[in-house]
């Protein structure tokens, strides 16, 4: 046997291994065992005078069809099909997986501690505005909460993606800048620009974390799409953790009140803030650890809710036209329509993220197009109603922010509608739509930064 032949066998065995590994019911250790079998069989067939490639083919055939084999294993280990959803996945190298879990845990604890560090300087979670310190405390945490948590998430990705020092500086820059901006701008305590900055800062910083997630290659569209996928899954994990945390807190209060102790202060000052901070990192780690194991949930929810929301918007439009009712414009309407657009953009984004862009247009794509067009119509009606009366309101920071967001989302949806229509008509590839969405991501970051940095000056810190 020449050297080249042996290498070919190794390649084929590696290929075969990767095929077998994809079966949930078969463990890595089982694959090792089967590989040993395969090699013994090949060796014995070669001894009998067969050529290496023939020996390999026969040996693989004797092991049996992969489907049947995997079924046999599944019957023996039916729990394995479930277990993968519960425990940390058995990484090929479990040392790597354990190290990652430890790093994530350490960072989660660090984030939880960071949330409480201001307490050392007298800034506690006591936000009771009845006494003097309360309002200042509240103001500090409103401005800095995301700054105390998200750097640890960025750190997690810097570590995980082995970011080069240069990349680390770039990753750290937005956080340093944000810390300076949030604490040097003389916001009016409890003012509009302050709470607007507090709402928009996490959006900007979340996209900054994406720089770490993409290992610095933020201009790469595939990595951006992966970050979108990550964000959706993270959100779902976070909601689940929050649900569990709520139950935990409920029982904490219940059990201690049974022995006559009031622990609400402990819950509000420690468990809640530390939990909120730590769960950000833990959620991210779970998504990272399980991305190849569990079907992504965000696209599943999208599939479920796209038809329902399309129906809702259609029904709304029809009712509005039929009854001739105008949209009653009050303070909350604009924000409500902003949220509607966010939701529709989300539905499109996650439908795109899960779609194989080589497949032909399907019914679901038409449905998405209808959804987008309905959302555009509904929003156009709302915008028109608001524009007609904007002079009455004057330009308050909240209204300008909400209007700006509305326009940004409207442009996104209009672009999506055009590209969707072209795709459904068979005149453009699906990738064009995907690219439009990923190319649009920095717009959100830029607008969020504008609201954080420029608005306070424009509106005199009110």
């Amino acid at each position, binding site marked *: 046997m020449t050297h080249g032949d042996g290498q070919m066998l190794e390649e084929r065995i590696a290929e075969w291994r990767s095929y077998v590994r994809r079966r949930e019911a078969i463990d890595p250790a089982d694959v090792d065992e089967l590989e*040993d079998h395969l090699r*013994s069989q090949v060796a014995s067939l070669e001894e009998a005078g067969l050529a290496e490639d023939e020996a390999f083919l026969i040996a693989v055939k*004797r092991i049996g069809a992969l489907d049947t084999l995997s079924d046999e294993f599944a019957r023996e280990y039916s729990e394995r099909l479930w277990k993968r959803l519960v425990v940390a996945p058995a990484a090929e190298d479990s040392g790597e997986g354990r190290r990652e879990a430890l790093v994530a845990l350490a960072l989660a604890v660090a984030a939880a501690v960071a949330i409480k560090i201001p307490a050392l300087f007298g800034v506690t979670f006591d936000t009771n505005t009845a006494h003097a310190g309360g309002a200042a405390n509240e103001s500090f945490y409103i401005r800095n909460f995301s700054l105390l948590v998200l750097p640890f998430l960025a750190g997690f990705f810097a570590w995980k993606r082995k970011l080069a020092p240069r990349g680390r500086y770039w990753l750290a820059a937005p956080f340093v800048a944000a810390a300076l901006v949030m604490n040097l701008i003389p916001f009016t305590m409890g003012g509009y620009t302050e709470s607007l900055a507090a709402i928009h800062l996490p959006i900007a910083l979340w996209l900054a974390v994406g720089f770490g997630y993409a290992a610095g290659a933020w201009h790469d569209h595939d990595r951006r799409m992966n970050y979108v996928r990550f964000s959706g899954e993270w959100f779902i994990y976070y909601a689940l953790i929050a649900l569990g945390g709520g139950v935990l807190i409920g029982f904490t209060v219940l059990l201690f009140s049974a022995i006559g102790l009031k622990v609400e202060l402990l819950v509000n000052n420690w468990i809640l803030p530390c939990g909120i901070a730590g769960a950000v990192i833990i959620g991210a780690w779970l998504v990272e650890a399980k991305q190849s194991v569990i079907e992504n949930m965000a696209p599943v929810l999208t599939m479920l809710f796209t038809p329902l929301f399309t129906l809702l918007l259609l029904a709304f439009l029809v009712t509005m036209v039929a009854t001739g009712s105008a949209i009653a414009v009050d303070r909350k309407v604009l924000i409500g329509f902003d949220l509607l657009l966010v939701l529709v953009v989300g539905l499109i984004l996650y439908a795109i993220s899960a779609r194989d862009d080589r497949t032909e247009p399907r019914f679901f794509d038409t449905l998405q197009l209808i959804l987008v067009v309905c959302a555009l119509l509904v929003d156009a009606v709302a915008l028109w109603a608001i524009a007609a009366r904007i002079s009455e309101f004057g330009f308050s920071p909240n209204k300008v922010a909400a209007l700006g967001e509305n326009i940004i989302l409207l442009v996104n949806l209009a672009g999506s509608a055009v590209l969707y229509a072209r795709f459904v008509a068979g005149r453009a590839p699906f990738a064009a739509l995907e690219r439009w969405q990923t190319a649009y991501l920095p717009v959100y970051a830029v607008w969020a930064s504008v609201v954080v940095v420029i608005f306070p000056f424009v509106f005199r810190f009110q």
Partner: protein
Amino acid sequence: MNIGKDLVAASATPLVLAILSEGESYGYAIIKRVDDLSGGELKWTDGMLYPVLHRLERNGYVKATWGKSETGRRRKYYRITDRGSEELTRQRRQWQVVDATLRGTPFHSFMMAPLGV
């Protein structure tokens, strides 16, 4: 002669236990041994053996350890336990009953007698 799927499945446990009662062994060698003993009549799909071995391990009839093959590769060896030996005795008795019953029926005189069994 082609032995049916159900019979192959039913005989797998006692056969594996019997082979392991001769001494510690591993998957490929067990299949080789079955092949030798049956004169090539009993054909297993190789991969099927492993779920069977793992079930025996879970039931405590065999004990598995990771060792090294002669070429230094990782290999899983199986050894029969006391419980496994008891199970083998029990299953042997059951097969004897089946066998004896079959011998007493016309099946035997028609099919096996001409072959001199």
